[in-house]
Structure formats: structure tokens, C-alpha cells
């Protein structure tokens, strides 16, 4: 009798465990910088959880799918303070997480990538738009979901040329990243036949972004700064540092539209994007995070979804297997941009359409029709294979 009972219990235990096989856990780390940067426009001030909020939504989406595939996704977030070593933080994260989403400056991305190479951790660069991470400094263990400056500049340039606004007045900030964006815009002008009629530099002389009577002064300064320009169609501003760009619209000496870092802005994503089913995702995002979705949120969402897509296709949580699949020829991911997104195999940059937004609406989406390419029209944005200096290692 007792033996029979024990047998029965044993059998039922075995049956239970067979039914509810433990799901495979796939750990994703998120490594970012603590604190937020200050923007000229108060409404554009990033939230504390900018970026990681997108990763969180993608973890939820992956877990809904994971219910059917026996996979469970977890997210571990780590923020480093200024001066703190990103490598140490990344190494700690990598102990439990085979995949790390990084929202770090270019130098830190490189340090982390090199430190984690032996371990086999796959890094997703969701934040840095620097060309060099995809060119001379490219790495075989870094996938880029953030677009590059050249992709953003080309996306804008194609539209301006389509609009026949081909005479540009280029205004460049005095910080390094402003100069890099200006380089990208110059390259774009040359590629697509626009003419930069004049360049001006806007020196950052310091000062607060929030003042009590700032508008009065700005209204006097900006027309003066932009007067006596040669005939131009559009003012193109390169101000990643948020020093003057947003002051330009409606304040130029000549009545001209503004584009680049203010006015018509190229971005990977925008809270106003509602085409191609995006409304569902925007709704999910607002429900989860009580705010609207930014480009950085989208770049992190896409990275985590790429992991989810690869784990469900390979039916595996093995980092090596998943990495190989993502880098392989059959990989693509859907990201509410009207077309499948794939990786440029020569530098692991995600191909993607770029939205042109004015802060309220999506004005257009590049690549523009008529910009042709023998492989993918998305490769008309940014550096193409033949130009690339990247040697993946």
C-alpha cells in the first residue's frame, strides 16, 4: 500500500515536471549613464528612464512570445556615474547576462566591447551615433541599432533635395559632436548635389539653458546672427550639444525653414509615428511607462526585440547560437517602419528608414523614392559597403 502510494507520488511529480518544464532564461543587461543631459526645449528633456523604458517594453513583448516557446527574458539595469569605469560595470552585468544593451559614449562602447570579447557577450550599441564605431573602430561583437550621423544627414538631405531646397546655409556649433554632424551634412550635400552657400559657427560661450527672460534676448540675437547670408533655401543647423539650434526656427533674418538639429529633424523614431501598425506599440509603451516613446527608447526596444526574434527562430538561449543567427543572412526584424530591418554584414549596422519629424508630426520618411541602390534602398543612407573602412574582428 505504502509502496503504491510512493509510486503514485513519484509518478505525479514526474508528470508535473514534464508538463511545466522550466523555461530557458535569457538575461539582458542594460548599461547607461546616470543623469540626463539638458535640452533647450523643456518638452524634449529626456526622462530618467530614456532608453531602458524601450528595452523594458521589448522584454514584455518577448515574454509574451516566450510563453509559447518556453523562454523567459529578464532585464538588469546598471547606470554608471561620471568617472566610473564602464568596463567594471559591464563585466559585472555580463556575469548573468549574455546580451548587453549599451547607451554609452563611443569610447566607452569600445572599451566595453574589447573587455567582453573573450567572454562572448554580445553588445548592442543603442546610443552612440558615431561613424567611427562602424568604420575604423568597428567590432565583431557590437551590433548597432542606433543610426549613424551619416545616415541621419543623408535621410534629411534626400528630402531637402527632393523638395528642391538645395542651397543650404550651414550653422555649426563649437563642440566636437556638432562638428562631426556638420562633416556628415557636408558629405550629404556632395553626394546628393546640394550646395552649402555659406558656413557659420555658433560659439558656445556658456550660460544657462533656463532663464527667466531669455526669449527677449534670443529674439534679438538670432536675426542678427543669420543676417547678410547669401541666397539660400534652408538653414541647416548642426547643434547636437543643444546650444542654439532650437532658437533658430521663426527667428532667422530671412524667412527660411530650419532643418538638422532643429525644425525638421531626422530621427530613428518619434512619438508621433503612427504608420505601419506603430500605434499599437506606441499605446503599449505609454501604458507601461506613462510617457511617450523617444528615438533612444526605440533603439533599445529594437535591440531587445532582435534578441527575442533570434531566440525564437533558433529555439535557443545560447548566446553563440543566437549571435550567429543575428549576424547570418536570414535575420530580419520588424520594427514598425514599413519594411524589414536587416544588418549590414560588413559592419553590423542595422539598416533602417529614418523619420523626418517636426516635433508634432512625421513629415516624411527616407530613403526618398528615386534614390536607388542595387542591394537595398536603405543603403542609400550612410556609408555603403564599397566606402567602408570596417574590418570586423
Amino acid at each position: 500500500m505504502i509502496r503504491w502510494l510512493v509510486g503514485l507520488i513519484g509518478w505525479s511529480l514526474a508528470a508535473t515536471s514534464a508538463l511545466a518544464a522550466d523555461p530557458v532564461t535569457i538575461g539582458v543587461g542594460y548599461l547607461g549613464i546616470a543623469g540626463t543631459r539638458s535640452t533647450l526645449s523643456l518638452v524634449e528633456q529626456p526622462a530618467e528612464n530614456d532608453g531602458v523604458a524601450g528595452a523594458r517594453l521589448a522584454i514584455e513583448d518577448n515574454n509574451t512570445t516566450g510563453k509559447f516557446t518556453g523562454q523567459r527574458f529578464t532585464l538588469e539595469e546598471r547606470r554608471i556615474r561620471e568617472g566610473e569605469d564602464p568596463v567594471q560595470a559591464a563585466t559585472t552585468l555580463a556575469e548573468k547576462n549574455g546580451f548587453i544593451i549599451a547607451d554609452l559614449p563611443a569610447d566607452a562602447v569600445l572599451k566595453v566591447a574589447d573587455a567582453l570579447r573573450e567572454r562572448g557577450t554580445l553588445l548592442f550599441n543603442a546610443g552612440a551615433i558615431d561613424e567611427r564605431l562602424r568604420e575604423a573602430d568597428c567590432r565583431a561583437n557590437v551590433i548597432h541599432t542606433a543610426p549613424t550621423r551619416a545616415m541621419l544627414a543623408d535621410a534629411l538631405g534626400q528630402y531637402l533635395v527632393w523638395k528642391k531646397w538645395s542651397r543650404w546655409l550651414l550653422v555649426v556649433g563649437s563642440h566636437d559632436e556638432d562638428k562631426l554632424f556638420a562633416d556628415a551634412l557636408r558629405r550629404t550635400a556632395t553626394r546628393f548635389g546640394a550646395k552649402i552657400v555659406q558656413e557659420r559657427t555658433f560659439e558656445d560661450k556658456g550660460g544657462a539653458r533656463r532663464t527667466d527672460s531669455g526669449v527677449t534676448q534670443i529674439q534679438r540675437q538670432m536675426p542678427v546672427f543669420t543676417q547678410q547670408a547669401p541666397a539660400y533655401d534652408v538653414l541647416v543647423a548642426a547643434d547636437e550639444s543643444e546650444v542654439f539650434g532650437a532658437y533658430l526656427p521663426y527667428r532667422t533674418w530671412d524667412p527660411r525653414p530650419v532643418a538638422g538639429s532643429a525644425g525638421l529633424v531626422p530621427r530613428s523614431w518619434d512619438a508621433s509615428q503612427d504608420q505601419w501598425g506603430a500605434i499599437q506599440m506606441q499605446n503599449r509603451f505609454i501604458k507601461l511607462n506613462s510617457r511617450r516613446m523617444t528615438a533612444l527608447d526605440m533603439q533599445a526596444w529594437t535591440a531587445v526585440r532582435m534578441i527575442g526574434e533570434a531566440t525564437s527562430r533558433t529555439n535557443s538561449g545560447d548566446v553563440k547560437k543566437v549571435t550567429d543567427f543575428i549576424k547570418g543572412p536570414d535575420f530580419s526584424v520588424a520594427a514598425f517602419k514599413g519594411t524589414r530591418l536587416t544588418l549590414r554584414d560588413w559592419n553590423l549596422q542595422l539598416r533602417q528608414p529614418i523619420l523626418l519629424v517636426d516635433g508634432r508630426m512625421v513629415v516624411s520618411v527616407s530613403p526618398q523614392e528615386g534614390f536607388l541602390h542595387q542591394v537595398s534602398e536603405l543603403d542609400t543612407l550612410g556609408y555603403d559597403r564599397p566606402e567602408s573602412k570596417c574590418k570586423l574582428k
Partner: protein
Amino acid sequence: MSSSDHRDNAALPPPPAGEGWGEGVSTSDTPQEERALSRIASDDAIRPPPQAGEVKTARGQTLRKLVTALPVAITLAAAPAHAFIAYVSNEKSNTVSVIDTDSWTVTKTIKVGQRPRGIDFTRDGKFVMVAVGDDDTIQVIDAKTQAVVDSLPSGPDPELFAQDAAGKVLYVANENDNTVTVIDLEKRARLGDIQVGVEPEGMTISPDGKTLINTSETTNMAHFIDTSSRQIVANVLVDARPRFAEFKHDSSEVWVSSEIGGTVSVIDPNKHEVIGKVTFEIPGLRKEAIQPVGIGMTKDDKTAFVALGPANRIAVVDVASRKVTKYLLVGQRVWHMAFTPDEKYLLSTNGVSNDVSVIDVAAQKVIKTIQVGELPWGITIAP
């Protein structure tokens, strides 16, 4: 989902002064004669439908008749035996266009709720159900009066739905909360929800009524649901963004279109395995533009039609070999399709060009284009 692909518009030159973007925007690759036809059709659409008591003869003369006593007879006289009525949901206009398949004209435009998409006749042919996603309901149109008479408790953001063979139970895909809602059509009551993947969309029921297929767009699966237990029995991974599912009439295969993946997966519904794929290639067209959505299969299971979205074409597929035999050029961003019950014609909704293409099924030719409202999405034809 369902996206409104506006991209093609982006490349059009700005409209001349005094002309809007709306109807009448000619499409770059619609053949000349088709455009001419669509112009004529849109003129017809503006003209009011014949009044009760007026009957048009073949020669176009209008005869006044004494009709008060015989409304039924008049209806029959106005609609010859082979004419059918198609209902088209216009996602942006918030209207449903009613098309007469005899005259190929829009006879009525019905105002409905916000963002109408999925649309289907009830099995008895008396009502048309249309999912109005942004109003979180399914509205019911009386086919006789052509007016909205009721609404169903669908759950949030209904998009597409399927009904059982008896027409008693309705299954609705609710994109916003990853569920399929089950509705008792007679009692107008919600019977329950089934949890599925992220962004459920495509819905179809097996010919024997035992299995419901739902596709989820971000999870990229076809979920096989037992209609009696309302439990998922299998999940089949397909290519990215599955939009639509269609059973072969002999139940041997389910075809699932993947909009972003650019393929149609052929699934064995017993083994729950992908047993083949239909792929598409159109010379001169970028691969990304080929986005399969709607699928229509002839009753003999020999020929399938697959709408290819922004490729502006419908592929004609030989079902046995799963090979494309022909591409039919239709309007811009072709989405969903419906056969006339006699299967002589197939009608497709072309979102960006705001029209419906009529295909002669036997000849495999586009014979007509009819202007409807803005962003036509779904279509159903009276049984």
C-alpha cells in the same frame, strides 16, 4: 496593425493649386486605361443612387413606376440575378462604401465609427459587421436599410474577426491587449478571452469549425486554438508580421501571409508544421516592397490570389506547386480581397490609391477600378 502605408504618396509631386490629395490622385504605375476607368467610376460614385420608384433600363433611361405596393419587385428589377453587393471599409474616411457588382458603382456610403477595418457579412447575409478599432467595438450594419443598427462588445481595438460555421460565435483579434475575444452573436455577449501573442491580427476557422487560427504580428506565430476548449493547442513560427490566414477548402493546408517577411507560409494543420513557402519576385521592384497581406483561394483549391501591399500587385499562385504564375497590377497598397459568390470576380482594396480593383478570375485580368473612400482596407460580399 494595420498600417496605412503612406510612403508612396511621399514621392508624388505637390498637388497643383486647387486640387487635393484625396480621390483622383493618379498612380504612377496604374495603366492609362485603368485610370480613365477609375475617373468614370468616381463620377458615377458622386451621382446619387436611383431613387426608390425609379428604375434604370439598360439604355439608361429612367422610368417612373408605381411602386408603393411592390418594393420587393423593384429591388429585384434593379438588381439582376448575377449582381452582388460588396461592402468596403475605408480606414481613414470612417465610412463603408457599398458597391453594386452589376453596374460596378458605389451606390451608397455609410458613416461608421472610427477606423473601420475588418468587415464581414453575418452567415445569414442580413447584417454586415465592421470592426471600428478606435471606438473599441464592432458595429452592425443592416444590409437591407444599409444603416448602422447595433454594436458588439468586442474588447479594445478590434481589427479582424472570424465567425463559426453556424454564425453564432464570433472570434475577434484585439491588437491592444494580446487577446482574442469570444462573442456570442445571438446574445450579443462576451463569452471570454484567449491570451495569444503580441498584436493578434489574422483570424480564420477551419472548414470543420474545430480549429481557430490566429496570427500575432510581433510574436510572429500562427496560434492554433481548439474552438471547444478555447485553449491554444499549437504555435507555429512563421516569417515576420503574419497578417492573414486562409484554409484550403479541403482543410489540408493553412496559408499564412507574412507582411514584413515577404512570404506565405504553408502549414500542415494536423502536424502544425510549416511544410512549404510561397515566395515572390517582381523584376524591377525592391524586395522590401513585396508585402503579402490578403489571401483568397478558389473553391476548387487550385488557384490562390495573394495581395502584395505596396508592390501594387496581386500574385496568382498555383496552389499545388506553390509557384506564382502571374502578377496582376492593381491600385496602390493592395490589402484585402473578396470573391463574388459565383467566383467570377475578385475585388481588392487598394489603400493608397483609394480604389477597388475588379479582377476577372477566369481571365486573370484586372477589368475595372472603382473609386471608394480614403484608405480602403477590408471587403466583404453578400453571400
